[in-house]
């Protein structure tokens, strides 16, 4: 087993790097116009620099380069690095100049295809609905859909300060533990570095000198999380310490809230005849805000829910078959969403009724 304290070093390195780099990038961003201007839909009121993604990426990269495992890292995960860099770059351009949705989607699919071609594929469904291994074309299709789906889900989740930061830390921590059990040194360092960089980011995101992740950041994080999740599944059989199906379940658990929320949002928009990419105010954090919770409490509530899902699956996977576990995870989410929608309806009707009540005849 690897010594645990070795993992703290990349974390701290990345943390210190991001704390140094952020102020630098922040002022640069303001000068070149890489800022997020508020509109009626967004929850912030003043323009904020969009440098979170860049700093996390660069801090992580530098930490990796300093770590000594960089050569072997490049050997194994070159494609992941390159595609992540591409995604980051596209994200930065999108933040500054607004790329058309179809171009963004195309690039995301291409990067996902590159990853799939390099051998990082979802090869089996581990027993959901009784399906185990799947034919190769389906593997490609499923992998691409999952990666693109996760990337966009995380992009949508980035609506409140700290929300994506907390969730990605929880996600990477889970992956860190899994790769630790699997004995994969390189990935451990990667995740540890990202966690450190994200903590540095959060220190600014939640403070007065705010910065945002931007599309660059949310896409980058979503991409690395998604691809890493699939990577880890490939490290079979976890040196015999962990059942692959259980690992699958735990990884799925991290993504459930962002992915299902984004699916629900897409379906909701299509139901009223709009394109799934229209902007509106129906995400999970919007719904929570309507119950009267402030931004901080909403971010914490949703993060705790993700943490709870991850922990719950760790317990469940010992006792209950995979299909049922997944249903048990999804059911509370659906119930919660229903209740939040009842709340939203109620508030809209309250104002409609006020109009009825106060009408002067």
């Amino acid at each position, binding site marked *: 087993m690897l010594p645990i304290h070795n993992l703290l070093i990349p974390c701290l390195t990345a943390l210190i790097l991001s704390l140094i780099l952020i102020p630098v990038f922040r002022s640069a961003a303001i000068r070149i116009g890489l800022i997020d201007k508020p509109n009626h839909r967004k929850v912030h009121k003043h323009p904020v620099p969009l440098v979170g993604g860049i700093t996390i990426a660069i801090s992580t990269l530098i930490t990796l380069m300093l770590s000594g495992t960089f050569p072997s890292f490049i050997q194994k995960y070159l494609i992941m690095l390159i595609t992540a860099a591409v995604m980051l770059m596209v994200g930065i351009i999108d933040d500054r100049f607004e790329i058309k949705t179809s171009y963004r989607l195309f690039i995301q699919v291409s990067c996902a295809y590159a990853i799939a071609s390099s051998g990082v594929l979802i090869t089996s469904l581990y027993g959901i609905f009784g399906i185990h291994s799947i034919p190769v074309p389906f593997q490609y299709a499923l992998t691409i859909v999952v990666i693109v789906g996760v990337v966009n889900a995380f992009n949508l989740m980035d609506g409140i300060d700290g929300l994506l930061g907390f969730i990605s830390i929880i996600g990477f921590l889970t992956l860190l533990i899994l790769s630790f059990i699997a004995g994969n040194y390189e990935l451990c360092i990667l995740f540890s570095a990202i966690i450190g960089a994200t903590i540095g980011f959060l220190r600014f995101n939640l403070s007065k000198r705010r910065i945002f992740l931007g599309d660059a950041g949310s896409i980058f994080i979503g991409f690395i999380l998604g691809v890493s999740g699939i990577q880890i599944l490939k490290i079979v059989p976890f040196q015999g310490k962990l059942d692959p199906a259980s690992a699958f379940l735990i990884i799925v658990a991290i993504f459930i809230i962002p992915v299902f929320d984004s699916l629900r949002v897409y379906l909701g928009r299509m139901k009223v005849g709009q394109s799934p990419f229209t902007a509106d105010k129906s995400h999970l954090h919007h719904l929570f805000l309507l119950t009267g919770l402030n931004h901080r409490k909403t971010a914490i509530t949703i993060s705790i829910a993700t943490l709870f899902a991850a922990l719950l699956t760790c317990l469940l996977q010992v006792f209950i078959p995979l299909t049922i576990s997944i249903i048990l995870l999804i059911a509370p989410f659906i119930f919660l969403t229903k209740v939040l929608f009842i709340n939203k309806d109620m508030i809209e009707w309250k104002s409609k009724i006020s109009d*009825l*009540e106060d*009408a002067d*005849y």
Partner: protein
Amino acid sequence: MTNRKIRIALIGTVGLPAKYGGFETLADHLVRNLGDKYDMTVYCSKKRYSKQERSGKYLNAKLKYLPFNANGIQSIPYDSISIMHAACSCDALLILGVAGAWILPFIRLFTTKRIIISIDGIEWKRDKWNLLAKWYLWWAEKIAVRYSHIDISDNESIQDYTAYRYGSLSRVIEYGTDHILKVSPTFEDKKKYPFVKHPYAFKVCRIEPENNVHMILEAFEVLYQHSLVIIGNWENSTYGRNLRDRFNSRKNIILLDPIYDQCTLDMIRGSAIVYVHGHSAGGTNPSLVEAMYHGLPVITYGVSYNRTTTEHKALYFRNKKDIIDIIRNVEVKTLKEMGKAMKEIAGRRYTWNIVAEKYDHLIQKCMNEKKKPGIQPSLARLNEQLLISYDAGHLKYQNGFFEKRKIN
């Protein structure tokens, strides 16, 4: 061979004999007026009636007792168990309040019993409930309207709301008021309540912010030459206690604790020269219609429900300034005429005979009704081109009766 009488269950009230509030008075009069025609069972709360009081019978009606409170969170099991029991032993269920609404889909699915439910104002909007309670009431109201054969509102403005939200027609049945007494103050009364010797404005209500008690008190603080008497449960809340501390010392403002004796209450109410009503929440308010039956002119908060109750013939206020303007400028002649108008309305609409007759009619109707009427004619479901070809295109998109045209 005589037909068996239809068996009606009355669910959701505290119980009979009536000693609580509006619903209970309603139950009392229904039993009085319809107890011969129908075989009635009323479900009561064991917690409100001591062992001696539980006689099991009231006039012609049977009484059944449940070990729950009829109000608050216990109203959910209280109503639900009553409904389940009634579904086995009665033909039609008359339910007051939506606490037990969750069980109605099952009753519709598994039995052929008829359900009439009174939705009691727009409960989920009221600030007295916490967020969880509001969610439940919001959802329960929807289930109640969808799964009942007939739903009843106590005000036409609430009928507007249900038409708007659910697209179905609520029936409107208000309250009766002719149980109140016309009482002149005796010598004893004048000694105990010296203010009855002079003109005063009157109000009786629960002391809650949504009844705008503070607004009225602040107005009369300015109108120091006019007397105001308010009867209410001041000690029950911080809001009430604060108001009492703040305004009790004013010479023209008299704040009394609740008076349960109907005779005394009617004496004080009847001797006033004007009734001030501040309710802003939904429905026809019993205290308002009772004041109307007294023949009192009414100055009321200008929300749609109060306007509908008084048929737009009273004086309406929105804020403290309005109250002050009205009281300063109104003439005695106007007040007298308004009083007569109010009495006329109450006599025409708010008597127990009429209310009981309406319920009777509804019970007969629900025994046969297949589907709840919508608010659009079924013609509107026809294809638009077809309607146009018959020069009837305007029937496709009609305004609902609840859509008021703004007159600018």
